[in-house]
């Protein structure tokens, strides 16, 4: 059987993204205070947003801390609810000039800033698994272009292939220091009614996996005011958003893109 396996990793039984992100998450647990106690806030918090989103795959299924902790292991330290969903589907957005957009029927959203940073080392050579990942430089570039700081952000739509990806991305953007995530997430921070809503569709963990378009299109739709029961503002006990921060990343934390969006 091993003779049929092609790679220098597969022969040791190493397959797929869950295990590689779990390697990153394990190194982070060794480097600073994090782990399932932190990630449960992300899985449970995003599920509450999905419960408000009729299009979410997990719309009808609640999740609490106990259920998160009781779920089966996939690749330790990740349990079932640390991983994104597997689904078919499609998302799209239309990009044009601000001038053209002003005349359209739909409320436009402005791209204030974009940043990209791609460390792109092979996973076994990566020294950024516990941060700073590409999110740090990408975020700095995006904020510089946008001419605003973190304090101006009203909500975040973060690429969430796994729970840990959300933590390390927000950490590298500067929302909290290494190991402060548990305290930052604790107290329903990212949930409906929270002070910093994150992944308000349920995200890839609880809505659906559309690669980088899950976070990006949700950021756009929230600023357009098209989000129904999960709409940020009075309806969900959160601030009406002017500025939303979106992220995407690829490979095993090997590429990162950040976008700062603003209501026009």
């Amino acid at each position, binding site marked *: 059987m*091993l*003779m049929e396996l092609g790679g*220098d*990793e597969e022969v*040791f039984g190493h*397959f797929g993204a869950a295990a590689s992100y779990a390697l990153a998450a394990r190194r982070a647990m060794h480097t600073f205070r994090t782990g399932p106690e932190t990630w449960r806030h992300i899985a449970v918090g995003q599920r509450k947003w999905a419960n408000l989103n009729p299009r979410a795959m997990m719309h009808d299924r609640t999740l609490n801390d106990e259920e998160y902790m009781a779920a*089966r292991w996939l690749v330790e330290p990740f349990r079932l609810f640390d991983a994104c969903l597997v689904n078919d589907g499609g998302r799209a957005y239309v990009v044009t000039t601000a001038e053209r957009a002003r005349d359209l029927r739909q409320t436009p959203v402005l791209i204030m800033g974009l940043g990209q940073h791609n460390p792109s080392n092979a996973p076994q050579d990566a020294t950024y*698994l516990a941060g700073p990942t590409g999110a740090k430089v990408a975020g700095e570039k995006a904020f510089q272009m946008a001419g605003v700081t973190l304090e101006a952000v009203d909500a975040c739509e973060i690429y969430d292939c796994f729970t840990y990806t959300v933590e390390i991305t927000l950490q590298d953007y500067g929302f909290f220091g290494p190991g402060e995530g548990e305290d930052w997430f604790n107290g329903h921070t990212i949930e409906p009614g929270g002070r910093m809503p994150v992944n308000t569709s349920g995200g890839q963990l609880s809505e659906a996996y559309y690669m980088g378009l899950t976070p990006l299109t949700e950021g756009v739709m929230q600023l357009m005011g098209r989000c129904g029961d999960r709409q940020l503002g009075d309806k969900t006990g959160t601030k009406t958003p002017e500025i939303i921060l979106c992220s995407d990343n690829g490979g095993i934390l090997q590429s990162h893109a950040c976008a700062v969006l603003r209501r026009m």
Partner: protein
Amino acid sequence: MNPDNRPFWDGCRAHELRFQKCFHCGLVRWPPATHCPACHETASEWIVSEGKGRIYTYVVYHVAYHPGFKDDLPYVVAIVELEEGPRLFTNIIGCGTEDVSCDMPVEVVWEDIHEAFTLPKFRPVP
């Protein structure tokens, strides 16, 4: 296996961890390549590692993503950083999955799984 990594796997059959070392800058590299990833020079020699290092990070598989590994569950996949510098994917054996930790010192142990194929695995240094 391919022409680039064949010398490594041939070395494993002889119970030697062989890596390319750049003639120009001295980087010991993995995976094998025609050019040095640090200085881009082509000249290199093969050296033999002492087979000692530490665990950079690791995971415990509870799901077999290939049926061939079902009987091995739960098993540990780790990135081991060798003293000579290269980091490679491998398995940690010879201890319980709960006894593995990051930065733990490990040494190579050879698993002859087929007459044509030997895997370099690692175990805690006694």
